[in-house]
């Protein structure tokens, strides 16, 4: 009896990786999913933080896809290792701070290590030639295979017929004839294929699979690095970039102001790491101060925070400032007018 071949599928939670896994499963291959958590993934997070979405928590699409396919999913924490990919991408950034090509190489390399450790035979991805301008062009496909070290163990079922045969095809573990030749940005072939497989519920993220493709998020990351004077980050830094209004009135400090209750509760969890402030004479949001501030800076910060509370039109409001040890003091300030908050301060 021939050996049961096993493949690991990179599952992002989108339709393409779901279809790629399905195509290979249909050929009798044992498939398990792998999903890498870089810290920037769109799944969960802001949905979870923001109050409005709490009534209907969003699902994690990677888990959901695995469940629909009936396969196991291994979620791997790559937060630390991913730093070197993002901080210094050999192939540069995409439209925003997304280092897609380096990211693909990194993930396929991790998958290669995983198949060696777990005695699997090959790797599949949902990549389609021409789907994404930076990382999924025909010329980039061999770069990912080669630089990841996966070489011909990396099979892209969605566009395999347009690429040289890989080991699973050469060895006859999978039938190349039953693979596909999709190219381009159109989603029609995938939607058709989903129909054929009876898949009628799937997620199609517009920009990409992570926050780094988001213009506003990328701007906040660049601002963070500029303020720190170094390209580095901790998980808390990048989580906080997803939450609240970020206002930098001076180069050496910024305010993170909750936009609603869920964010306020989330920011509460950081009161031991940051000086925080909130309006105590009127209802208003919690704000964290990121940076070392003088008395004058603190006063300005209080005036800004006053602007975002219900006392915004009052002559004077009380702003309670709490330091990391929990000591409190009250500043009495006049909230700034909207036109006194420079547009350039908004990160």
């Amino acid at each position: 009896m021939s050996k049961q071949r096993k493949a690991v599928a990179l599952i992002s939670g989108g339709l393409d990786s779901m279809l790629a896994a399905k195509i290979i499963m249909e050929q009798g291959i044992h498939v398990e999913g792998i999903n890498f958590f870089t810290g920037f993934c769109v799944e969960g997070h802001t949905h979870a933080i923001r109050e409005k979405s709490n009534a209907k928590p969003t699902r994690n699409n990677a888990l959901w896809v695995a469940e629909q396919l009936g396969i196991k999913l291994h979620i791997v924490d790559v937060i630390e290792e991913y730093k070197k990919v993002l901080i210094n991408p050999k192939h540069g950034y995409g439209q925003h701070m997304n280092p897609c090509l380096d990211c693909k190489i990194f993930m396929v390399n991790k998958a290669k290590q995983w198949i060696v450790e777990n005695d699997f035979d090959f790797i599949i991805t949902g990549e389609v030639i021409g789907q994404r301008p930076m990382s999924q062009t025909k010329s980039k496909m061999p770069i990912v295979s080669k630089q990841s070290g996966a070489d011909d163990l990396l099979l892209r079922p969605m566009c395999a017929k347009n690429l040289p045969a890989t080991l699973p095809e050469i060895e006859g573990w999978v039938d190349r004839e039953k693979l596909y030749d999709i190219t381009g940005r159109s989603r029609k072939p995938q939607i058709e294929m989903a129909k054929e497989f009876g898949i009628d519920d799937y997620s199609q993220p517009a920009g990409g699979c992570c926050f780094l493709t988001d213009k506003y998020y990328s701007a906040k990351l660049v601002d963070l690095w500029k303020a720190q004077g170094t390209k580095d980050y901790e998980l808390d830094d990048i989580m906080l970039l997803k939450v609240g209004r970020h206002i930098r009135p001076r180069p050496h400090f910024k305010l993170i102001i909750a936009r609603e209750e869920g964010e306020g509760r989330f920011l509460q969890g950081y009161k031991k790491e940051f000086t925080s402030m909130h309006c105590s004479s009127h209802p208003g949001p919690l704000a964290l101060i990121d940076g070392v501030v003088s008395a004058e800076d603190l006063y300005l910060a209080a005036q800004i925070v006053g602007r975002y509370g219900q006392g915004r039109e009052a002559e004077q409001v009380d702003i309670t400032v709490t330091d990391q040890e929990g000591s409190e003091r009250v500043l009495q300030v006049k909230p700034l007018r909207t036109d006194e908050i420079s547009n350039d301060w908004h990160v």
Partner: protein
Amino acid sequence: MTGTFKNIPMALKETLNARRLLCPLPVIRTQDKVKLLKPGDQLEVICTDPGVMHDIPAWCRINGHKVLETHSCDHEYIIVLEVGE
């Protein structure tokens, strides 16, 4: 919370503090902890991200573990699971 387990004296009863972690980190921490447990052991996961009420049960279904209990109080979300085969 130990009362939850009082009728199952043989099983290991562990608690995982996943407060302040956002999904999928509570799932990853649960996955890593379960790797160290045996079938029949129980794990109580305490979280603050409401997304876990979806994600941890989904992860359990995929991987053959059983959710024994889920509840929330004071913005904390608690899931008790039993490790499967």
